[in-house]
């Protein structure tokens, strides 16, 4: 009898934690999302589903922009992370763990602080642009801050380690003898990479995409620090609805819409790319 209870006791603390701090607020927010009223006179539950339609229609642009930024940032992190992960996994030698620590080093500095330091770096008269302007390489009114480039760049920078690590883990699990076998069977480096190494590392890319696309799309720090009015993401809108406009029902409705959209997106993505093939190679 005792043996049957033990596993449940083990999940009890974590489970309770999640129920109290995730499920309860979620239920509360779900309730708020269909209420009407204002912060002075109080909110009344009217089951007004139109809150969702209103929110979606009003902030359609920001939704699409967030998805676009998330997508662009994710593709960029793949492009930047793959070579790094490849190099550490196959050429890192005895110093692998040192390199991995270097990849993780930014995490020792606060997320906001890192983003703010980017603002200094990219400032119109900052250490990057001013010298370029001085030597006339870029025009005097050239700026990076408050542009899409700055926001997507910031997102890419902040989430890069979340792509490097899973790809590294996947590459690390590729048996070197399997790679040797491909060379033994007349592969060029290119054949070996495209037919063997890349397919076997796709599960890592798959996991990396999940770990970067979702937080990037709902991110608000990069857009608010590095972006301008034309770069507002849905995360910024939700923040504004809650903290500035005090329109809790609108904020809740937006949050739920975003959550649902991403769950559907991930589901479709997993169905399309997370095929048996990819996972089977990983499960070896």
């Amino acid at each position: 009898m005792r043996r049957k209870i033990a596993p449940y006791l083990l999940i009890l603390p974590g489970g309770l934690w999640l129920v109290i701090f995730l499920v309860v607020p979620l239920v509360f927010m779900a309730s708020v999302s269909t209420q009407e009223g204002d912060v002075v006179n109080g909110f009344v539950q009217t089951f007004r589903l139109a809150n969702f339609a209103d929110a979606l229609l009003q902030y359609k642009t920001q939704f699409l922009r967030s998805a676009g930024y998330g997508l662009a940032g994710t593709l960029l992190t793949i492009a930047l992370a793959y070579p790094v992960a490849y190099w550490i996994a196959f050429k890192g030698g005895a110093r692998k763990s040192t390199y991995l620590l270097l990849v993780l080093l930014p995490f020792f500095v606060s997320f906001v602080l890192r983003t703010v330091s980017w603002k200094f770096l990219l400032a119109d008269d900052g250490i990057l642009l001013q010298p370029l302007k001085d030597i006339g390489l870029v025009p005097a009114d050239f700026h990076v801050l408050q542009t899409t480039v700055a926001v997507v760049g910031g997102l890419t920078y902040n989430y890069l380690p979340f792509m490097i690590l899973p790809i590294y883990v996947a590459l690390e699990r590729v048996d070197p003898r399997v790679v040797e076998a491909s060379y033994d069977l007349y592969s060029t480096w290119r054949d070996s990479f495209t037919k063997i190494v890349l397919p076997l590392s796709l599960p890592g890319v798959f996991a990396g995409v999940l770990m970067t696309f979702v937080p990037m799309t709902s991110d608000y720090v990069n857009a608010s620090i590095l972006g301008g009015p034309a770069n507002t993401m849905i995360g910024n809108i939700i923040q504004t609805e809650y903290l500035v406009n005090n329109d809790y029902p609108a904020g809740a409705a937006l949050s739920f819409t975003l959550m649902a959209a991403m769950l559907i997106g991930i589901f479709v993505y997993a169905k399309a790319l997370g095929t048996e093939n990819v996972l089977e190679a990983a499960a070896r």
Partner: protein
Amino acid sequence: MIETQAGKEAAVAAASDISPVPAIELDGVVKEYQAHGEVVQAVKGVSLAITEGEFFSMLGPSGCGKTTTMRMIAGFEDPTRGTVRLHGQDVTDVPPNKRDVNMVFQSYALFPHMNVWENVAFGLRRKRVPDQEIKRRVGEMLEIVALTGREKRRPREMSGGQQQRVALARALVNNPRALLLDEPLGALDLKLRQAMQIELKRIQREVGITFVYVTHDQNEALTMSDRIAVMNDGLVEQLAGPREIYERPATKFVAGFIGTSNLLSGTAEAVSGGTATIRVGDRDRVLVPVADGTLEGGAVEVTVRPEKIRISHEEPGADLSAVRGTVAEVVYLGTYNSYAVNLAGGAEFTVFEQNARDSSITAERGDSVWLSWQPQHSYAIGS
């Protein structure tokens, strides 16, 4: 040009005794590694010629350099010094994907994301062989290794023995000049390993390709090989056929590594007519065949296999080598009895006595016995 070719052929013929151009030739091959700032020699100078169509084994304990030697033939390691030739052609600097040899890896190294058919077709596809021909050759090869009907299976869904055969097919389908096998049966259990030994030998006869087989298992090497190179500490200790390796071990290491050997230290007293008389301890003398002029007194070691020795209570005839001892242990092993005998001179001998029809045991523990053998079954060896 013609002269050098003829000269080379003569040299090679002398080395291999059979075919004019060896399939694989190693010439003074050395492999050094940098490890912790020190130079480590994994292979200290190996020269050998492997004949076309031969089943050639490299046998030795782990760390003896056999796998490194094979990897230099495959092209995965560059020799520090020396030359690797395939069919007379210097391939020392040719990368593995341009060498006409294929390898069966330890633990197979099958492509986990591909099914059996794709695994086997991989090499042919890289060589841009036409699709029709790929289909035909993969089909034929799967038939040879008895995997027809399993084309769509993934490696993970197959038993160790089946994976083994996929790995074999994947290499052989390319019709290589030589097949290199790196401990291919190591991961299989005993019964399956024995079955695969016979299977491998059959396949080798069927396809007629040179097999180079790396193993630490002496039984495997003795069962399958035409010739065996016994390696130790980066060097070839002996290169000969299985029978000669077993019956006439060239060095103390070979005698100890292959089967069980008894070693006797003595002093050479007289050499005449190809036979040396060796004094062992105070009372005993044994006879050993030697080439004239190779032994002129001094310390010598004599080796004799346990199954060549007869154990008896009576003193044997004077034409036999004989030593005295006391039985320390008798072990019944089913098909034979094994005796541990302490010799008067201090050495410990193992004697195998076949469990014949009457199931009797000749001597009991504590008995004083004579051990005797025909002189031609013992050898004086260098150490």
